[in-house]
């Protein structure tokens, strides 16, 4: 592949993910020591026992590394958390973007591994995305480092390569989700959606009536499984089919936000779908050309470089 790209979609995705990371961190800040502190809801000894392996950096390993400073566990938690917030802010606005990307990735890994029991889908999808930003030159536009102008030298092969592999990886995650569901009797039998909506932690609306209309649950379960299982295939088909599938996927994630109140998970999935598949670089450039009148910013330069 010799195709070069500005990485505009990846740059917009960087900003969106950065903002999500910051808001998510702020929303768990009041419970920070409950999750990561020495005497938290999962004491550090138990978290370490449940960790994936001693080779992964965690709050405990950072504390051991900094043993000369005699820091208390909670002080290490505070230090890591503030460093993480700063890294996320730099990553979002694109200041020292390369360093900020690596730091955000590593600090996110530390938070992930320090209390694995508390993590869920959103953390894994965020980590999946952050990994691809550690490669040089990926999604570095619309930043303090590069400004708002597009230059010919901003185009690089790395952006095209990473976008392509990120898309494949992301599509595979849907396939895996679909495969997991279809192997379960509750999903095949149409019971799973009803069950998940009836669980106390997700019961914000009364869906008990669904038990009388089994076909609704059955349809929703199979609709979900078909979308997820064939997601990679749909993305390979023509644009209309891909967009139809993407509209269904986004609808599904909106449903997760509204009915299950998994705000960050739903938002991350929608943002990833939008910037990896829906919005292509040439669409963004077209949009900018139409909307931007200011000659100093993206629009005019985009017009100049429009392909």
């Amino acid at each position: 592949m010799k195709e070069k790209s500005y990485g505009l979609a990846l740059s917009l995705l960087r900003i969106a993910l950065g903002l999500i990371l910051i808001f998510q961190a702020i929303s768990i800040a009041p419970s920070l020591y409950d999750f990561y502190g020495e005497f938290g809801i999962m004491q550090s000894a138990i978290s370490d026992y449940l960790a994936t392996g001693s080779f992964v950096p965690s709050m405990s390993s950072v504390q051991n590394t900094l043993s000369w400073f005699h820091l208390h566990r909670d002080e290490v938690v505070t230090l890591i958390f503030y460093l993480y917030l700063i890294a996320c802010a730099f990553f979002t606005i694109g200041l020292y973007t390369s360093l900020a990307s690596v730091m955000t990735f590593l600090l996110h890994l530390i938070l992930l591994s320090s209390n694995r029991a508390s993590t869920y889908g959103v953390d894994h999808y965020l980590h999946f995305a952050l990994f691809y930003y550690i490669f040089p030159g990926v999604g570095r536009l619309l930043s303090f480092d590069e400004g708002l102008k597009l230059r010919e030298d901003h185009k690089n092969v790395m952006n095209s390569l990473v976008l392509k592999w990120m898309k494949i990886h992301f599509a595979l995650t849907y396939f895996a989700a679909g495969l997991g569901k279809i192997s379960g009797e509750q999903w095949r039998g149409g019971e799973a959606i009803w069950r998940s909506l009836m669980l106390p932690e997700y019961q914000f609306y009364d869906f008990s009536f669904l038990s009388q209309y089994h076909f609704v649950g059955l349809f929703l379960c199979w609709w979900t499984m078909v979308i997820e299982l064939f997601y990679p295939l749909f993305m390979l088909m023509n644009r209309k089919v891909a967009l139809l599938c993407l509209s269904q996927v986004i609808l599904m994630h909106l449903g997760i936000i509204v009915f299950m109140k998994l705000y960050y998970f739903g938002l991350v999935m929608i943002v990833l779908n939008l910037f990896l598949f829906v919005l292509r670089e040439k669409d963004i450039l077209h949009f900018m050309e139409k909307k931007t009148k200011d000659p100093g910013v993206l629009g005019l330069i985009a017009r100049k470089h429009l392909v």
Partner: protein
Amino acid sequence: MKKYKIKLLSLFFTLHLLLVFFSMMMPYSDKLSNIWDSKYFTPIRVYAVYTGTHIQFDFFAPSINSSLKVSYLVEYFNGETELIEELSEKSRESQIRYENIMSNFFEIEEDESLRKAMTASWAAKVFSKRPDAKKVKVKIELFEIPQMKWSDYYESSFERKVTAGIP
């Protein structure tokens, strides 16, 4: 970028995605799980954990687990008792994480010492917030579907040994 660098990068990403696929297929093959657990696979396992390629992304599958609810029955030194259902106010995001921690209780069903340690950890949190508490009973209930009712699942009691000046 030079051609050989692009080729090397493409090879790297291909191997990376092969590992992603390998991890995703692990729940369906004992052979793959055995390979994953073997000592020869350790460097790849390290890479996978760092990069997140070990995640199977099979959320809410193959089945939907029942819910667990934790409550604390506190007995104070003065003889009074209190039932606590929420330790503190939480944002929705923190609430989800609390529930995830609780749901780990299913996964460690065969490890009684770990279950005891986890409940001790929760009880310690209550003791730390209530210095006049003498005894904490951690009560875990299971939400049964389709009966739609809570039933007793696990119980464990802890008593404060050091009274910190309280007679």
